[in-house]
């Protein structure tokens, strides 16, 4: 702060003495510089750029430097590595399912006291209990939700019509959806019926499980929650997708390529990809979106993907500044900027309810509406407890691969998956 090249030696030597006498004044006047980390710049770059510009106008004394990682996985590595070497950024935006790791390792800080200091009821600032729950891990408010997504149905209206379906009345239950997919598959000419994003992670599987009203783990987190009828129902659905819907064995990237090339009828994946799908489809075909087929109209829920900001600064001045940025980015104005530049769902009730923020955007971009309509049944993305958190996810995906390749029955897969996940849960006496 004082080491500018023009300083004479005497001034430089006297500076520490000056600091002794007037530390408070200096702190109040000096601009603060904070480091903020976020992942996936290919999705978020414009949004964070817009946030930075708007925030600089509001808080000219806070200078924000961004650090980015290509994806959430590397983002989590970065923070864990820097926590070990004491070089943490002041604020980091992490995927919802990774937040629990940081909460359990004491890296994330509790944000509720800061929220309460501003408003006794955080809901008045747009932080409703549902939205706060998205980033509530390890027993405390470990983050504030910044961007949310839920799974939606994308379909190729041309193929649906050719198969005798009505693109304006897309079926809303799995029986009819699978039948339609089967008809598209039988069109031949290299056309495939449907694809469900079962690989990558457990997020889309949890959509089927939550859709049945099921849970990943029991309430006390001591045992798996998918060993019952809901879990079997979810796995059987994947089995039926292969048998009745003609779901091919593809990687996620390959499936998206086939869909944007107009060779795949229906694809189920996160709404966060709407922008990319629109660009990919171009003029090849008419792209439409709608909500996920309903499984249990009463108990059925959907998982929420996306990212939350977590505070990691220790120095009080930087912590203040980082909190201001986090509050701004998750406030109505910041959320409106985020939504317009990405296509994710807003995480602030004021931005959702007050049409002055996003009303016009949604009128102009109807493909984003499928996810908005599903907000009422969206619940947090479940993150497994303990050090094997991420490995559990991979174990589930590996077992689902056996269904997709038709090498095991749903009952066998459910049994093995339950047994393997049980072994990975934290042991408690």
């Amino acid at each position, binding site marked *: 702060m004082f080491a500018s090249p023009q300083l004479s030696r005497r001034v430089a030597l006297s500076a520490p003495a000056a600091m002794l006498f007037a530390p408070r004044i200096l702190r109040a006047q000096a601009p603060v510089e904070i480091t903020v980390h976020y992942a996936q710049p290919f999705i978020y770059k414009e949004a964070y750029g817009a946030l930075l510009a708007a925030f600089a106008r509001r808080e000219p004394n806070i200078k924000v430097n961004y650090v980015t990682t290509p994806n959430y996985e590397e983002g989590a590595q970065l923070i864990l*590595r820097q926590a070990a070497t004491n070089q943490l950024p002041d604020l980091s935006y992490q995927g919802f399912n990774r937040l629990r790791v940081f909460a359990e390792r004491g*890296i994330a800080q509790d944000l509720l006291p800061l929220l309460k200091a501003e408003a006794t009821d955080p809901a008045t600032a747009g932080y409703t209990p549902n939205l706060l729950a998205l980033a509530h891990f390890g027993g405390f408010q470990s983050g504030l939700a910044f961007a949310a997504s839920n799974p939606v149905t994308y379909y190729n209206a041309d193929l649906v019509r050719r198969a005798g379906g009505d693109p304006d009345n897309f079926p809303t239950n799995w029986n009819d959806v699978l039948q339609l997919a089967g008809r598209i598959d039988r069109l031949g000419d290299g056309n495939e019926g449907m694809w469900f994003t079962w690989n990558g992670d457990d997020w889309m599987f949890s959509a089927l499980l939550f859709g049945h009203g099921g849970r990943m783990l029991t309430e006390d987190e001591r045992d798996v929650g998918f060993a019952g009828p809901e879990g079997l129902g979810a796995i059987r659905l994947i089995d039926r997708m292969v048998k009745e819907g003609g779901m091919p064995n593809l*990687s996620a*990237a390959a499936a998206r390529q086939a869909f944007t090339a107009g060779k795949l009828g229906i694809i189920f994946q996160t709404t966060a990809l709407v922008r990319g799908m629109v660009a990919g489809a171009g003029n090849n075909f008419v792209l439409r979106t709608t909500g996920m087929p309903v499984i249990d109209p009463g108990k059925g829920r959907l998982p929420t993907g996306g990212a939350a900001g977590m505070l990691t600064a220790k120095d009080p001045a930087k912590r203040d500044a980082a909190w201001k940025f986090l509050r701004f980015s998750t406030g109505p104005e910041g959320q409106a900027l985020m939504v317009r530049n990405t296509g994710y769902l807003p995480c602030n009730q004021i931005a959702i309810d007050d049409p002055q923020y996003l009303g016009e955007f949604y009128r102009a971009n109807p493909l984003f509406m499928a996810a908005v309509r599903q907000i009422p049944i969206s619940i947090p993305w479940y993150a497994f407890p303990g050090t094997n958190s*991420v490995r559990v996810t991979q174990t589930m995906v590996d077992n689902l691969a056996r269904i997709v390749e038709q090498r095991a029955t749903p009952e066998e897969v459910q049994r093995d998956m339950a047994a393997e996940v049980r072994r990975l849960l934290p042991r408690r006496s």
Partner: protein
Amino acid sequence: MSASLAFPARRRTTGEALAGWMLTAPAALAYALMLLLPTLATIALAFTDYELGADGLAWIGLDNFAELLRDRGFAIALRNTILYVALVAPLSVLGGLALALLIETGTRGRAFFRAVFFLPVVSLPVAMAAAWQYLLHPTIGPLNAALRGIGIEGPAWLSSSDTVLLSLAAIGVWENIGFNLVLFLAGLTAIPRELYAAAEVDGATSGWERFRLVTWPLLGPTTLFVVTITMTRAVRVFDSVAVLTQGGPNKASEVLLYAMYEEGFTYFRLGYSAAITLVFLAIVLALVWLQTKVLEKRVHYA
């Protein structure tokens, strides 16, 4: 006489030794910092339970290695890596040799073919993987489109557990063959022409006889080097797996280095990951040792 001369001579030797040390210092320092210390740190880490972001670490002796023996994922990774090497090494060594002989005997377009086959070596593996992902795409990929043209329904090359390792091995051969080709070409040009003439005089008239009696023995040192380098390159397979399959489906394409990466950087278990690294290191060292000690005895150095 000797006494009076010995002293300056010794001084000169120490001076030379010192100069030698100073001249090698940059390289030695770089070696120590970039290779030796990290390797030692990895070895130390392999005996701990260190996790990325954890507060501390504990010395757990051989527990990581005991876990490796029980770990189904590691066993699959090891088996897949061995299979991959068993496919890639012979095919790309023999293929490289065959191509080198064809180009060497050919009269036209030598530089052209050399460049064509060498291109994969200088191309970026990750970018090439994206190209392969398109070529092998089950529905819109050119390969399956061609197969469909002759009435065959091609498999899902990279997403079926039956074909994924074969597809990756094919990509591995494609990546390695050009490198081997260039090495063999260099080896071939080093064989004196007179030996072929002499062999012909001695009655080796067929091309196969000349290859068996002259080319193959004299290529010995080159072949040894090519085999060693191809095997270590194949054991190191990572890029194509990371970009194309992430070890899936259901670990059908899990290989050693990808398992190491996953344990260390996805599951954050650096201690366990270091143990896998040591296994990898042991395999590479064993390969090098085997080839230098055992095969070297049978190689004729001209």
